[in-house]
């Protein structure tokens, strides 16, 4: 069992080196990060900064070269086998031969939940992501945004206390993307799960997160961690608020390493 006091994610001195034909690539260099239970943390940075790698290490889809990584106080591999996290990727990754319901049921099915309990849980999840009218549809009949909702419902199926998301809205158009962000903010509050969210988008990171982790490439490092103190239950109106733009500017400056005004003059 997990101790209630242990952090959702605890990384200390984590490095990851990929050996390729052309030599070694230092994807991550001595990264320390802690994510509290229920906290929403975004990882942001240019391509190659290792944000996706860090997420994959937490998910135990890759193993760190050095350093330790714990999820709810246990090694990442144990946490994966115990199903302590749910995960969603940029590609929805739905099984095309399964209906919406059957796709959401996959994690439950893999871990032998009784069909009766499954049905009730799936109904809950379908309602949570607003797909009540599409339970019998196949992925090729859904829009990109709807597919991503199914992927999120699947990630939440086993009721994990940690949600890992690798640019889940990266392939969506801007309007769908904002709607999905608002939904995700609500879902995160409703489920009380901690979220580690990889993104390229500064407004997206600011709108969703309690903390934004800014990373830089070659080697992948954490340069700054910024607080976004807007509390829970964020509304659409936040997107127009001056303090929202102020935080967006702060993240942008941290990303560029210089004040933005100067960057604009060049």
């Amino acid at each position, binding site marked *: 069992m997990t101790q209630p006091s242990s952090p959702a994610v605890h990384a200390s001195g984590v490095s990851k080196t990929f050996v390729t034909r052309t030599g070694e690539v230092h994807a991550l260099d001595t990264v320390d990060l802690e994510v509290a239970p229920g906290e929403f943390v975004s990882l942001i940075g240019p391509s190659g900064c290792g944000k996706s790698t860090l997420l994959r290490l937490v*998910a135990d*889809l890759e193993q760190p070269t050095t350093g330790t990584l714990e999820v709810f106080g246990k090694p990442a591999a144990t946490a*994966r*086998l115990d*199903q302590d*996290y749910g*995960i969603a*990727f940029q*590609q929805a*990754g739905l*099984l*095309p*031969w399964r209906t919406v319901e059957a796709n959401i049921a*996959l*994690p439950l*099915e*893999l*871990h032998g939940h009784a069909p009766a309990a499954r049905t009730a849980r799936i109904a809950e999840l379908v309602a949570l992501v607003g797909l009540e009218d599409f339970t019998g549809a*196949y*992925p*090729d*009949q859904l829009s990109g945004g709807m597919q991503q909702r199914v992927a999120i419902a699947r990630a939440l199926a086993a009721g994990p206390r940690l949600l890992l998301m690798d640019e889940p809205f990266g392939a969506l158009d801007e309007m769908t993307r904002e709607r999905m962000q608002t939904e995700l903010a609500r879902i995160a509050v409703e489920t009380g799960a901690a979220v580690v969210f990889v993104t390229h988008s500064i407004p997206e990171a600011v709108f969703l997160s309690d903390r934004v982790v800014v990373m830089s490439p070659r080697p992948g490092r954490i340069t700054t961690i910024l607080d976004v103190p807007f509390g829970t239950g964020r509304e659409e109106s936040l997107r127009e608020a001056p303090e929202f733009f102020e935080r967006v500017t702060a993240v942008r400056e941290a990303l560029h390493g210089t004040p933005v005004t100067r960057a604009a003059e060049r």
Partner: protein
Amino acid sequence: MTPRTENLLKVVAPIVVGVLLLGAWQLAVGVFRIAPTLIPTPAAIVAQIAEFSPIIVEDSLITATNALVGLVLGGVTGIVLAGLAARFSILDGMLLPIVAAIAVVPIVALTPIFNTMFGASSQFGRQAIAAIAAFVPVFINVLRGLRQTRPVHRDVFRAYAASGAQTFGKLTLPTALPHITTGLRIAGSLAVISALVAEYFGGPADGIGTAIASYAKSGKAALAWGYVGAGILIGLAFFLVTLLLERLATRHRPTT
């Protein structure tokens, strides 16, 4: 043109062409007598089919059964061996040269040997020929299909801690299904052709291949052509059934 007339045209056009061709054939052979003796009129062929339909059906069933047994044998062998080759890469290396060799063996080269081996009272030589012909496309397509799982799906199954058997049963196999049915569709036509051709080289004195050969030689051209028609029907039946299987397996799959 409205979509409805367009659809109607799609059905009517080939029928019109077929009727015109048959009419021209009947005229050329029946009225103007400009064809060699082995080409009878369509009317004569239909008359022969009507007269000999019980024996044509009987022979057709024998050939079709041989093709079906061959398709099942070759198909199952192809699926099992491809599964093993996908799982154990060392087997892949061992099997590939053998499969390549089987793929280039001309069926007609093996047929007389097999027919002699299994004797004039056994259909097994013919079935084995059909099985060999069916095996190759099934093996190649299934092996390819078993390697089509997408990285994002593999990540999903690993993240949800699926066992090896679960990953195979719920991801690898369903992903391969359209390829399996494609292999079976190609193999179906090959099995029919091989089972029929195998009858030209000995074995029991039945089946439509045997009948076509003997009636053509003895000058009963119209009856021989009737049997050819039966062969076409068998081939079409195999093709349509396997095509239907393939369509079912590829429902809801993105085409890319």
